[in-house]
C-alpha cells in the first residue's frame, strides 16, 4: 500500500516537471492598459521566456494603433518588454497616443524574429457600449431624465389635485419634489453637490374656500453635499453622509422662514430579495438640524400669536425610507407595482411653533413636542408611457417651518414624474 502511494507521488512529481518544461507559447489576445505610458499585456501559456529569449527583445516587436479600422497605422516603439506574472508579457510603449482612452483605439501587435514564427495579434475596441442615449437600452447611457420604474423614487415629481363644488371657490393642491445631484464629485473631496427642494401648496385647505390662492404651506430648499462610505458591516451595505448647507424653510400662507443646516447619516441596508420578483429596501437615518428663525407671523388663521421667543432652532432629525416592489420576472426595470413609505420625526430641543387646526379652531403652541411626518404611496405606472402613473398618497403630520398639521390626507390621482439618471447616484433625504 505504502509503495503504491510512493509511486503515485513520484508520478505526480514527474508530471509537474513535464508540465513546467513545456515551452513558451504566445497567446492570441492582448489587453490595453490606460496607464501612462500605455502598456499592452500579451498573454502566453506554459513557461515564461527566459533571459535572452527573442520574446524579450524590444526590437522584435512592432506595434501600431489606429483611431478607426480603415485609418493608416501609427507606429509606436516598444521600449521595454517584461514578464508580468505567469501569463503576460508587458510591452511598454513610446510615444503614448494622445487620447483619453487607449482602449477605444485599434491596436496591432506583431512579433517577428529570425528564428521563430511570427505572430500577429489585433485588438479591436469593444462596440461603443455607451454611445448614444436611451431610457430603455441598457447598453447605452441614459438621458438626464427618464420615467421611473416601480423601484425608483422619482427625483422630480409634481402631484396635483383640483377640488370644485357648490359654495366654494376651487381649491388647487400641489406637491412638488425636486432634486438634482451632480454626477461627479468636487475634485479631491469625494463630496457630490446637489440642489434639492420640496414645495407643498394648499395641503390642508378645506372647503368652503372664499378665495382661490396658491399659498405654499411649506417650502424647503437646500444646497447639499453627499459622501458615500462603502464599508460593509453585516447586513449594512454602506453609509451615506449628507450635509445641507444651508437649508431654507419658508411658508407664505403664514409668512415665516427659517434657515438651518443639517447633517445626516443614512444607513443603507442590504435589500430584501427573496424571490426574483419581490424586493424591499429600508434606509433609516439619524441627524441634526440647527439654525435660526428669520421671520415669523403675528397672526395665524386670524388668531393673534406671540412667537417673539422663537429664534434659535436645534432639532434631532430621524426617519426612514422604505419600499416594497413587485417587478417583472424577465425585466426588473419593468413597472408593475410598488408601495413606498417615508417617515420623519423632528425633535426640537428648544421651543418651536406647533400649529393645529381641529374643528376649525386653530391653536398655536411653542413646544418641544415631536413633529411627525408620514407619507405613504401606492404606485402603478403605465407600461406604455412610464412618465405617467396612477398613484395614491397618504400624508399625515407636520412640516416646517410652522409645523401646520396635515390630518390624514389621501390623494388619488395621476402623477407626472421623471427620474434623473445622469447622476448615477441616489436621491437626497428631504
Amino acid at each position, binding site marked *: 500500500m505504502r509503495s503504491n502511494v510512493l509511486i503515485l507521488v513520484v508520478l505526480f512529481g514527474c508530471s509537474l516537471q513535464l508540465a513546467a518544461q513545456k515551452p513558451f507559447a504566445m497567446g492570441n489576445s492582448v489587453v490595453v492598459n490606460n496607464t501612462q505610458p500605455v502598456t499592452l499585456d500579451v498573454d502566453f501559456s506554459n513557461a515564461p521566456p527566459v533571459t535572452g529569449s527573442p520574446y524579450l527583445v524590444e526590437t522584435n516587436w512592432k506595434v501600431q494603433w489606429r483611431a478607426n479600422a480603415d485609418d493608416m497605422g501609427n507606429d509606436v516603439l516598444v521600449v521595454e518588454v517584461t514578464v508580468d506574472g505567469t501569463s503576460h508579457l508587458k510591452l511598454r510603449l513610446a510615444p503614448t497616443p494622445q487620447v483619453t482612452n487607449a482602449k477605444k483605439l485599434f491596436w496591432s501587435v506583431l512579433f517577428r524574429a529570425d528564428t521563430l514564427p511570427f505572430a500577429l495579434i489585433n485588438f479591436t475596441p*469593444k462596440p461603443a457600449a455607451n454611445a448614444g442615449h436611451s431610457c430603455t437600452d441598457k*447598453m447605452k447611457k441614459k438621458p438626464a431624465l427618464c420615467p421611473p420604474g416601480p423601484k425608483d423614487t422619482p427625483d422630480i415629481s409634481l402631484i396635483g389635485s383640483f377640488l370644485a363644488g357648490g359654495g366654494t371657490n376651487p381649491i388647487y393642491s400641489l406637491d412638488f419634489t425636486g432634486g438634482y445631484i451632480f454626477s461627479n464629485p468636487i475634485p479631491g473631496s469625494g463630496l457630490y453637490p446637489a440642489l434639492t427642494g420640496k414645495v407643498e401648496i394648499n395641503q390642508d385647505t378645506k372647503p368652503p374656500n372664499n378665495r382661490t390662492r396658491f399659498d405654499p404651506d411649506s417650502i424647503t430648499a437646500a444646497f447639499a453635499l453627499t459622501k458615500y462610505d462603502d464599508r460593509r458591516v453585516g447586513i449594512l451595505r454602506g453609509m451615506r453622509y449628507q450635509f445641507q448647507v444651508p437649508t431654507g424653510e419658508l411658508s407664505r400662507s403664514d409668512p415665516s422662514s427659517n434657515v438651518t443646516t443639517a447633517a445626516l447619516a443614512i444607513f443603507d441596508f442590504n435589500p430584501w430579495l427573496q424571490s426574483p420578483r419581490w424586493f424591499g429596501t429600508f434606509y433609516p437615518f439619524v441627524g441634526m438640524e440647527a439654525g435660526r428663525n428669520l421671520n415669523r407671523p403675528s397672526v395665524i388663521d386670524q388668531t393673534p400669536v406671540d412667537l417673539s421667543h422663537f429664534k434659535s432652532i436645534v432639532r434631532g432629525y430621524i426617519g426612514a425610507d422604505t419600499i416594497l416592489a413587485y417587478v417583472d420576472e424577465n425585466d426588473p426595470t419593468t413597472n408593475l407595482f410598488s408601495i413606498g413609505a417615508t417617515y420623519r420625526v423632528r425633535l426640537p430641543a428648544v421651543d418651536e411653533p406647533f400649529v393645529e387646526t381641529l374643528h376649525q379652531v386653530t391653536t398655536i403652541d411653542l413646544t418641544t413636542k415631536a413633529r411627525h411626518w408620514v407619507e405613504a404611496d401606492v404606485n402603478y405606472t403605465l407600461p406604455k408611457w412610464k412618465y405617467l402613473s396612477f398613484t395614491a398618497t397618504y400624508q399625515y403630520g407636520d412640516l416646517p417651518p410652522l409645523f401646520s398639521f396635515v390630518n390624514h390626507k389621501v390623494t388619488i390621482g395621476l402623477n407626472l414624474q421623471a427620474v434623473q439618471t445622469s447622476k448615477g447616484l441616489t436621491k437626497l433625504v428631504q
Partner: protein
Amino acid sequence: MPLTSSFCEHVVVNATPFPSRFEPGTAAQTTLFTLGVVDNVMAAHFVHSIKNAIAPLSIDNEDILSSADTTVQAAADSVQQNAF
C-alpha cells in the same frame, strides 16, 4: 494587476450586495438585480465600490453600467473599456 475580463468580472460581482449568489460562468445571464442592485442607492454603492477596487485607475460614474437589468458581463465590459 492588468484590467482583464476576469478581474473586471470579479470586481463587479464583489461590488454587489450579494456576491455569494453569483455562479461562475453565468456572467452573461446574471443580472445585477439578482445580486441585489435593486435601486439607485444600491447602484450608487455598486459604482463606488468599483471605483475603489480599480484605484489608482479611474472611471467616470456614468461609464459604469449599473442598471438593475444590466448583466454582470455588460457591467464588467463597461469597466474594462472605460477605466483609464
